[in-house]
């Protein structure tokens, strides 16, 4: 362990330097008003300016293009992406029960409507076939 110095000597060493440059990074009001409770690190006006420049000049992560997944995927996206976006925005892992109930009722309605349309179209097809079949009984008379 390095040779110890007295606390008083250490303080004299510490205060023998110049004052640190610059003002505090953010105001006390910002620290007090943006506490957690909220997501992410509280960001002050100064921090935002630095963040923008840093974001514009950033070169990381440097992932090869062939490994980058495109965000455009109409085959798998659509309602699934909307659902995921809602979950991200609201910080909910699963779908709330109330949404499940509402969406489920709507799905039931749509499903039954489809079944009804399908059954009606099946009946119409049968009828048109019967009209096209010649009446053998009449021909013989």
């Amino acid at each position, binding site marked *: 362990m390095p040779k110890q110095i007295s606390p008083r000597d*250490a*303080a004299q060493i*510490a*205060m023998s330097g110049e004052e*640190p440059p610059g003002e505090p990074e953010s105001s*006390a009001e910002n*620290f007090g008003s943006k506490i957690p409770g909220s997501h992410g690190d509280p960001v002050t006006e100064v921090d935002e300016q630095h963040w923008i420049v840093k974001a514009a000049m950033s070169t990381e992560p440097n992932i090869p293009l062939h490994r980058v997944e495109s965000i455009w995927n109409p085959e798998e996206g659509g309602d699934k992406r909307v659902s995921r976006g809602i979950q991200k925005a609201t910080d909910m892992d699963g779908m709330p029960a109330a949404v499940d109930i509402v969406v489920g009722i709507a799905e039931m309605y749509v499903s039954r409507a489809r079944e009804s349309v399908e059954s009606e179209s099946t009946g119409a097809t049968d009828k048109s076939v019967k009209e096209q079949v010649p009446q053998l009984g009449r021909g013989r008379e």
Partner: protein
Amino acid sequence: MMYYLKDGSHVLISGATGAGEAFGGKSVLANWWFSKSVSSGLHDMGVFYNPKGLSYVRGEKVRNLREMAEKYREGARLFNFYPHEIAYQHDRLQEFLTELEGSKIVVHDEAQQYTGDALDWFLNQGGNMNEAAPNTGDIRSLVVTQRAWNLPEVNRANMPLKIWVGPYGNEARKFFQVEQMPDAADKIEERTGAYRWSVTDGGEYVTTCKPVPETYAEKPR
């Protein structure tokens, strides 16, 4: 709103311990609190007394007063003090800080390892330096410990702000029983969860907050 962050009162941070991922978060909370206090200008200097050598603590890493003094002279004001001798260097840190100008915030992590004269001084006199040493500012203490009931009652009495971090279980029941805060215990049991932190002030429930950003649990780049 959030007055306890700017208030100069000493703070006791305790919480659930365990091997699972849901436990822990006390030192991370202290890491966030002390670093933001300095960066926001609330305090001129911050020291995280780090007996375990936690890698994610913010600030200049130093191992003795000489290194801290030299870094301070270069302009650093946030320190991660990883001591060689826990109790001995804690006493010397107290003497050093009383010689420096400006207000300070000090995290005493794993405080149960070095209960003694220095911690008594920090909690009894450190928050009112105008009387003890007019040339220096107040020193606010954040005391982090797993078994808060092992700290002397006189020390716990000097920390009006008490925070519980993490899930509610047997340890929480004992903590609130020792502190005689049954009403606060009920409210915190309903609201707390992994890494969430609940604030009490003078025995009264104040609020429960979401976890601090995960970056404060990661080694600084």
